[in-house]
Structures are given as C-alpha cells and as structure tokens.
C-alpha cells in the first residue's frame, strides 16, 4: 500500500518533469484563472466590507441633543423612541463616548483629533433601525421632540450604496462561477492532451497487466501536484498584489468610504485554503474526467 503510494508519487513527479511543456501549460492556465478569481474575490469582500461599514455608520439615525437637555429628558426620549415601529435599539451617547468612537473609526489617522482642545461634540441618541424603510418617518418624528437640536439620517445615500454593492456582488459571483467552469474545461483539456501524449504508454501498461488504479494513481497525483503548484504561485502573487493595492489605494479608499480596506493578512489566510482546495479539486477532477475514456477495458 505504502509502496504503491510512493511509486505513484515518484511516477507523478517523473512524468510531470518529463512533460515539462504540458505541466507548465497547465500550471499557467490554472494560475491565470486563480489570479483573475483572486481579483474578483478581493473586490467582493471589500465591497461587502465597505457596505457593512456604511450600513453601520449611516444606517442609524443620530439625534443630536441641545446642550441644555438633561440626561433625564434624554432617557424619556429613548423610552418613547424605543416604542416606535422599526426601531431596534436606541442608546444614549455622551460627548466623551462620541469622541472615542470618532477616534476608533479614523484608526491610524486618529492622531489628527489629538489637537482638539475642547470636545465640541454634542450629546446624542443613536437609533438603530431594524428596517431602513421606516427611517424617514422616525427621523421626522424625532426631530419634533423637545430638546432635540439636529437629526442626521442619510436614507437615500445608504440605499444607493446597498444597491450598488448588491449589483457588484452579484456580478462578481457570476464571473467567479464562470471562471471556475472555464478553468475546469481548460485544465481537463490540458490533461487530456497529456493523456493522449501518453496513450502508447497507457496501452503498454494495460498489455502487461497494470490495474486501472496503477495507471490512474500517478496521473491523479500529477493533476493534484499541478493544482497545488498553481495554488502556491497564485497565493503568492495575489498576496503581493493585494498588499501593494492596500499600500497605494488604502489612503484613497479611506477618504472615500471612511473605512480601510480589508486587512491583507485576513484575506490572504482565506485565499490560501480556498486556492489549495480549488487547485486540488480542479487538478484531481480534471485528470479524472480526461482519463476516463482511456481506462475502459
């Protein structure tokens, strides 16, 4: 059993090396596909990350209170607001808390806020909505309450962002599915060529009494090795690209969305297992598809 596996592994490497051209072609095709896939993956993850951020930041109604409004009055307001339909929660945010949040959101740029000599933020009540559609009504009602200074609610903007991001995500999903199918076809064709180039050898093996698994094993392994090599290259390249992207575009993204791009380490960690699973799957599946018709007795 172990000797069989060792034999398969040795043969797989030997064949892969002897058919350098084919091996390279396969690796190239899978890597190219994975890189494009990676770009779409980065896009989708970031878009949904930013959307969540936007929802968190702007999917809430900020009710800014007049300076003379007491905490007691504020507590009463919260009780009545909580009674309204479509409100998930309402909390009191003191001006100190408000500043802390501000700093947290600005992340590495928070030092800019250190220069403030006095906290000019007002006390406020933050209303979290359970459904964004009722927001307009709640905002108007809240604005009418005594002791309220200004109400801030960006309903249209949030709706737009959500719609755009949904479209982008759906589009990306279609492209990803398409890419996986295309790459499966490309890979199984590449391996089919390898198998055809080796048809004599397979025929020979059959004549001297090789079992199907004896023939299949090395080829399956070869496919898997090709997939793994491609995955490794793709992970390396896409990690490099994404880190670069964060370095150069991170600032702009922050200014545009007031949220940073998804942490490269987190994304790359996920990419590693996704790509290796995909590479092994495509390699194994591709070689099985292309071998099948040569292994009928």
């Amino acid at each position: 059993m172990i000797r069989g596996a060792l034999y398969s592994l040795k043969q797989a490497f030997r064949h892969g090396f002897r058919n350098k051209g084919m091996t390279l072609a396969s690796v190239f095709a899978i890597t190219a596909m994975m890189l494009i896939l990676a770009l779409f993956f980065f896009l989708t993850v970031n878009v949904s990350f930013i959307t969540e951020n936007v929802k968190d930041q702007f999917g809430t109604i900020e009710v800014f209170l007049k300076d003379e409004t007491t905490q007691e009055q504020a507590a009463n307001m919260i009780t009545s607001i909580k009674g309204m339909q479509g409100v998930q929660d309402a909390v009191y945010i003191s001006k100190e808390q408000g500043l802390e949040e501000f700093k947290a959101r600005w992340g590495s740029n928070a030092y800019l806020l250190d220069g403030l000599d006095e906290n000019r933020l007002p006390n406020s009540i933050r209303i979290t909505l359970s459904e964004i559609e009722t927001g307009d009504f709640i905002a108007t009602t809240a604005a009418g309450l005594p002791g309220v200074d200004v109400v801030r609610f960006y309903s249209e903007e949030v709706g737009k962002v959500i719609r755009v991001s949904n479209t982008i995500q759906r589009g990306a999903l279609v492209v990803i599915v398409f890419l996986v199918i295309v790459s499966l076809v490309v890979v199984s064709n590449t391996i089919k060529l390898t198998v055809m180039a080796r048809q004599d050898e397979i025929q020979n093996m059959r004549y001297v009494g090789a079992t199907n698994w004896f023939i299949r094993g090395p080829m399956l392994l070869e496919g898997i090795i090709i997939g793994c090599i491609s995955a490794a290259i793709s992970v390396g390249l896409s990690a490099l690209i994404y880190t670069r992207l964060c370095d150069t575009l991170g600032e702009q993204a922050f200014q545009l969305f007031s949220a940073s791009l998804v942490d490269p380490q987190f994304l790359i960690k996920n990419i590693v297992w996704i790509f290796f699973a995909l590479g092994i799957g495509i390699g194994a599946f591709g070689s099985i598809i292309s071998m099948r018709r040569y292994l009928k007795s």
Partner: protein
Amino acid sequence: MIDFKNVTKVYADTVALKNATLHIDQGDFVFVVGPTGSGKSTFIKLITKEIEPDEGEVYVEGKPLSKLSNRDVAFLRRDIGMVFQDFKLLDNKTVFENVSFAMEVVRCNKKTIDRQVPQMLSVMGIEDKANNYPNELSAGEQQRVAIARAIINNPRILIADEPTGNLDPETAWEIMQLLELVNKRGTTVVMVTHARDIVNRMNKRVIAIDQGTIIRDSRGGDYGFDD
C-alpha cells in the same frame, strides 16, 4: 490452457469468428494463419479480453473470461505476454526501462528488477543495448526488446501478432528461434502470421481461419493458403 467454446464475434456487418471451438494445450506452439481480414486478430483479442464474444465462451487457464472483473483482466494479462508487428516500445524509455517497466507494473522490487532485466537482455542477445533508446536499434533488435518485455514476468502464454512482419527473412528466422526458446521453457506460444516460409519450416500446429471459420487445424501442418 486456452479453450474456445462455440465462440461467435460479429462486427457491424462482418462475421469475424463463427462458432469457433478449439483447445490449445499448455506448452503448445500454435500458428494461426489466414488471409487478411479472416478473423485472426479477433481471435487474439478474445484471448486477452480486449473484446468480448457475442456468443460462446473463452476460457484461459480454466477461467471463463466473461466472468472476469476489470481487475481480474489486469491479472489475466500478467499471465499473457504480447509481441506485436510494430513492437510497441516506448520511444522515450531506454531498452532497460522498456523491460523494467513491465516488472514495475506487477510491483517487483528494484533489486529483482536490477538482477533480472540484464539477464533477460543477455538471453535475447542485446545486453549491450540496455541504455539505448528504441530508435537507435535495428528492427530485429527492437523485436528482441519487445520479446524480453513480454516474457520478463514469466507468463504462461505468449501471443505474437505477426512478430516477423516488419523484419527481413534472416532476422525473422532469428526471432523465430527466440520464440522457440521461449516455448521450450514451457510457455504456450500462439503466433498469428502471414509468413508461409516460417510456418512451413517450423513444422508446428497450424490453425487456419478463413472468413471467421476455422477451416483447418493440423499438427505439423503447413501454411496452405495461396495468398
């Protein structure tokens, strides 16, 4: 050893073998002769289970082939050596590798391979070609490699499909002597051929097939066709 019981094989519109019944003993040397398209290749392919009969049953070493699984067929073929007119050597492997390949397939260990392959090559008279590639050899030498590969695992049966078809008469005769040697070691040899001279000179059992029918089966027979 090899038994055909009322075997019929029909291709789209031609009858390749019609109700054939015959018996070949262990250690026999049999020529199968007949004009082109008479059903000789079908006869061989039925023995190795490359194709299956439409009717009747083929037995090899007492086992009915129709009952064999894919895996059993692989093991059946380890007991059958095959030699072809076009040698079917692997061009990207050396002579040594072409032969050792057959041993790897049956999971021999490296020590046995390294001992037996040179021995076999020297029996075939090509021990000095071990590291050459097939395209560096003469046709006769290539056929010797093919025979070495076919018998390295000591099969009980050797099937030769026109093994002298691509060889000049002198080389052909050398190959025949090798096959005779193989037969003397106890291996059953079934050889399909067109070579009248060889059949007449060898004086072995001859099975003549014409249009799918066995028309003659005689010991010490001769070629007997005018083609």
